[in-house]
């Protein structure tokens, strides 16, 4: 009886060691899954950061989607592989046999352990296997404590660690303010003939101020009207692409650490080198081949330099324009021009920056004119503080979103800085000329509001 008991103890120890081998191998398998999944995700995120800093919005969106898909499929594949290779006791015994050169001893002991009738050689098999127990200790069968998948994880972390600074480095020129040498930081002088105007996303906040004489502004209004008409003619696919571009742009800004809610306002002085009677919006302006639209990433205004200047839009790019913003109808622009009694400063003169500095900034509660000052018919935006400026000023400002970027094609040529312009009118508003606002008595506000609510 004691002999039998000793045999049972030996058998138990053999089985216990097989369990130990199994636990160790399963632990390594779980490690592999975790490390591989993390490696895939970290690598994908690192590359996404890099793509956000170095690619355009649509390219970035495509790369980001591709990377996320690859990461997702990789994780799914790893899950399937790890599930398929999970270690059962029989498999642990087989692995122990192979690695410890036990020639099927463990497999046989495990498989026939529960068999009621044993061969006369069973005791010999148990004794023989027990005598080799040191050869199939878990630490010898699976000496690794860390899965090999840890190395891909390290590589992914390294890649991400390098990708983020590389992304910062690559995106530094984009985050830099407007080139000095124009009129100081964030001050741009642009010719209206070089402007390619496209409607911006109404949801975007204004971050640019435009200064120009009334005639130039009327031309600007014409261009706005043309852009609006072109936008109405666009296909749904183009609008979808624009939405995707806007989404990608916003996401890119987030990844690059830019705060889209608090953009640095860009002041742009608009000049007209070719003054003449403002032309009404024509079909030729709306034509995709007219070159009046560009590919400035969904921004409101984009410089479309003449004579093949850098940043000129390819034909047909107008169909990719974002949804319409607002533009001044020609008659309103004419009215604006006639009301403007003060002489406009010459384009590029020293008075322009001074005038710009006297203008209230966007978002200033005391600011006059513009759609965010109560103009329009939106009942929610009817009232505000009175405009401190007299009506008929020689200039007014509208808010645009402008983001300077270097898209020069020829070395040494001046950097093309496309302004991004948008007019923050909401859906209930319509283009209006800038009017000075007077204070409304509190007693009359409800009556006026009711009238506009009809």
């Amino acid at each position: 009886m004691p002999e039998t008991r000793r045999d049972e103890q030996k058998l138990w120890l053999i089985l216990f060691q097989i369990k130990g081998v199994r636990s160790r191998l399963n632990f390594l398998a779980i490690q592999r899954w975790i490390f591989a999944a993390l490696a895939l995700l970290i690598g994908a995120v690192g590359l996404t950061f890099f793509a956000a800093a170095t690619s355009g919005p649509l390219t970035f969106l495509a790369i980001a989607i591709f990377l996320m898909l690859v990461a997702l499929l990789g994780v799914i594949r790893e899950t399937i592989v790890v599930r398929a290779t999970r270690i059962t006791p029989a498999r642990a015994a087989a692995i122990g046999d192979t690695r410890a050169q036990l020639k099927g001893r463990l497999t046989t002991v495990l498989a026939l352990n529960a068999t009621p009738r044993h061969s006369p050689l069973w005791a010999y098999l148990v004794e023989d296997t027990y005598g080799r127990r040191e050869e199939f200790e878990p630490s010898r069968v699976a000496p690794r404590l860390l899965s090999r998948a840890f190395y891909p994880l390290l590589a992914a972390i390294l890649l991400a660690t390098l990708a983020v600074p590389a992304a910062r480095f690559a995106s530094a020129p984009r985050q830099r303010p407007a080139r000095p040498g124009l009129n100081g930081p964030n001050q741009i002088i642009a010719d209206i003939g070089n402007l390619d105007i496209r409607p911006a996303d109404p949801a975007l906040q204004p971050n640019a101020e435009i200064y120009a004489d009334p005639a130039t502004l009327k031309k600007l209004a014409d261009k706005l009207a043309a852009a609006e008409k072109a936008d109405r003619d666009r296909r749904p696919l183009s609008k979808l692409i624009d939405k995707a571009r806007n989404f990608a742009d916003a996401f890119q800004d987030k990844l690059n650490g830019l705060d889209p809610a608090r953009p640095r306002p860009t002041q742009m002085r608009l000049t007209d080198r070719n003054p003449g009677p403002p032309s009404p919006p024509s079909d030729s302006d709306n034509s995709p081949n007219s070159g009046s639209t560009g590919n400035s990433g969904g921004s409101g205004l984009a410089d479309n330099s003449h004579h093949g200047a850098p940043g000129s839009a390819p034909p047909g790019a107008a169909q990719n324009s974002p949804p319409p913003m607002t533009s001044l109808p020609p008659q309103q622009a004419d009215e604006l021009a006639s009301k403007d009694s003060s002489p406009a400063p010459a384009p590029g003169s020293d008075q322009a920056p001074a005038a710009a500095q006297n203008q209230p900034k966007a978002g200033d509660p005391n600011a006059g004119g513009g759609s965010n000052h109560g103009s329009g018919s939106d009942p929610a935006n009817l009232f505000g503080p009175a405009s401190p400026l007299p009506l008929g000023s020689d200039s007014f400002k509208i808010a645009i979103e402008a983001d300077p970027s270097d898209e020069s094609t020829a070395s040494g040529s001046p950097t093309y800085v496309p302004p991004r312009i948008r007019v923050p009118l909401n859906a209930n508003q319509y283009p209006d000329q800038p009017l000075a606002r007077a204070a409304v008595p509190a007693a009359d506000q409800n009556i006026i509001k009711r009238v506009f609510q009809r």
Partner: protein
Amino acid sequence: MNEAQSTAVAELPTIADFARTFRRIQAEIHKVIIGHEQAVEELLSALFAGGHVLIEGVPGTGKTTLVKTLGLALNLSFNRIQFTVDLMPADITGTRVILSSSEGRREFSFQPGPIFCHILLGDEINRATPKTQSALLEAMAELQVTVSGTTYPLVPPYFVMATLNPIEMEGTYPLPEAQLDRFLFKVRLGYPGEAELVRIIGSTTGPDGAGVEPVFEPHEAALRIEALKRLVREVIVAPPIEQYAARMVRATQPANSRVLGDLHAPIVVDEVNRYVSFGASPRGALALILGAKVGALLDGRANIAYDDIDKVAAAALDHRIMLNYAAHTDNIDAAQIVQQVVKAVRVSRA
């Protein structure tokens, strides 16, 4: 108590006894047979596994000498039948003849043929007609001979070794598949190498031949061999190993065979589908396991490993695979097919 009954009560030897006895017999045989180590090991494996052996070799490679030496080493009764085209079944099994008794009465009496022995050598078995060849079937499979309605048991151990000459095909009768299947192993004897040839010349052209010492005493030989055979049967086989052997046999069967019950083969070997008419029978799986058991004991193990199966696969399956005409035209033999099968099945190990 006859000899057969006495073996049933013999004490089971140990694994070490088995390996020691096996190696000793091997050494005695190699006193005479130079080289052919694998053939000798397969021959002894078949003996202890309880099977019979088909020895194929070109003339002059020592087929008959090998069998004779084995008989001497084992110290068992040994008979040799030279198969010829006019050999009749009764020449093998024996026949009833009329004899006069001491009282003067004449009665039929059975005169046993050369088949009644422990070790039988059927030399050039393919020279006899199929009818005569089939006279061996009952003896090989059931250890008994039936003559004129009377069954006569054979005394174990009973071991048939048949030789085949592969190059003299004229005037021969290929063995029927049923008889081929009854041989546990097919052992190939090739030409010896130069060094072996020099040793053969030296050992056989002198005045004295090598003296083979019997390993067993005459009275205990059969008893001990039967005990060793029982030990072989006791070797433990794990279910995954059995499955491996079955899968290997199944892999030798072509997918388009009309005799297959299960058309879904877990492992498909292209060469098998292209060149094989009929694969190995279930006896092939038994041969694999029994041969592997002997291999395990020789390695000091009480259990079979996958490698033991692989090691005997060629000897156990070679003669059970029937090749088609395409194989002959492409100069493919069964050994190559078995090699491909083993390679394909090896990846399916647990």
